[in-house]
């Protein structure tokens, strides 16, 4: 066996993948070949150091923040008129005892039970997997077009659409397909057609009736800072940050965001928003 082949064997040795025969083969070679023996020891140091890289890092309490947000979204969902409009007839008011979980700074979990009133659907049957037309597409304009149709068919709030001819939808997603389980959110990614290639050509479009996203300083679309309202087309949009605008239309919150386009560019696109 050649020394080059030995190198792969050495790496596989440290991956713990060698079978007994291979291991004896390796050992035999190392006894006779000084350069491979040195390779072997150097890889040993590397793998040892890699193991030492794994460490527990103290970090801010991400979990509680997420749970709070979930709680807010759920409460909001349950009290919103739009939601009641689409709730199925089986909805009844029930008393639910829910466990609220909070975490101390040290990361220790502390549980306390709290009773609360919720307007909640009665779960008449266990969760079932329902086949729904696909709504999630990444970077594929043709599939995205079809997925967008599926989104319009499944979404349970009045969704407006951008009709700016320069925008070509290429990624789509609908979260909360089952609006009974989670509030819905539509996220679309458009490519700005006709501009020379670069990083500046993606526009993100987000729509949700969950208004916790309206005032939320931070969402996955960036950090927002309110910078005044502007009329664009039929609706008033608020500038938030340098690259994002938001508007509430029929109790649905829309956000337009592009990492590299200005709010002015985005407002131009927002003019074209209309009911399908």
């Amino acid at each position, binding site marked *: 066996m050649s020394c080059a082949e030995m190198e792969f064997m050495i790496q596989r040795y440290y991956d713990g993948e060698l079978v007994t025969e291979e291991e004896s083969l390796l050992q035999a070679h190392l006894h006779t070949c000084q350069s491979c023996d040195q390779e072997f020891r150097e*890889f040993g140091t590397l793998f040892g150091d890699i193991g030492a890289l794994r460490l527990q890092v103290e970090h801010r309490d991400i979990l509680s923040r997420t749970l709070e947000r979930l709680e807010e979204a759920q409460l909001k969902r349950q009290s919103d008129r739009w939601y009641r409009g689409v709730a199925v007839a089986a909805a009844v008011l029930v008393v639910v005892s829910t466990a609220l979980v909070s975490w101390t700074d040290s990361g220790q979990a502390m549980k306390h039970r709290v009773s609360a009133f919720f307007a909640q659907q009665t779960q008449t049957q266990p969760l079932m997997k329902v086949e729904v037309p696909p709504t999630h597409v990444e970077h594929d304009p043709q599939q995205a077009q079809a997925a967008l149709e599926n989104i319009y068919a499944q979404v349970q709030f009045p969704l407006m659409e951008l009709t700016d001819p320069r925008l070509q939808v290429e990624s789509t997603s609908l979260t909360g397909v089952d609006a009974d389980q989670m509030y819905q959110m539509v996220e679309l990614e458009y490519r700005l057609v006709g501009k020379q290639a670069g990083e500046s050509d993606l526009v993100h479009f987000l729509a949700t009736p969950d208004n916790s996203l309206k005032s939320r300083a931070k969402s996955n679309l960036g950090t927002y800072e309110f910078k005044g309202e502007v009329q664009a087309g039929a609706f008033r949009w608020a500038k938030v940050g340098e690259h994002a605008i938001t508007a509430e239309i029929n109790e649905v919150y829309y956000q337009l965001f592009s990492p590299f386009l200005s709010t002015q560019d985005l407002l131009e696109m927002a003019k074209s928003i209309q009911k399908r």
Partner: protein
Amino acid sequence: MKEQDLVAGALVDQASMAELLRMIEPYVFQTAYYLTGSKMDGEDVAQDALWKICRSLHQFKGDSSFRTWVYSVVLNTYRDAARKKRRVTVPLEDTYVDHAPSVEETVATRSRLDDLRREIMKLNTEDREIFVLRHLQQLSYSEVAATMEVTEAHVRSRLYRTRQKLKHMLYGGE
């Protein structure tokens, strides 16, 4: 408990959702931390990823492993963040790889580990993702491949090359 039951439980009951999130949070943060090389960026990415996970949990299909699905959400969140951040932050070479040294690290090995961390941050995104999943999250080669939606052979060949490069740069005699 079976993954499937855990997920189904979390979708109908908020306390179960909290349990599930508590269980995966350390992995989500650690992965984000290793990928970004910074505690603050790691926290931001982890927070977004965790929120995405609970928002889109219903999209999890039982045909992949839950673990793999969680990691793929973290990777996507990281990639989005990296893409959006590229224009406004200093190039990667200049970023300071901050970390909390563990007590086990002696002074001598610490500087060697620092060098290693720096080299890992200089890897391209794909190679860093592979390295983090395989070595720092200890996924199997096939799990890494499933998470990244590439072949196992591809993962192996990339990682072999990465380790060869790291060894040569940091420990190579010649």
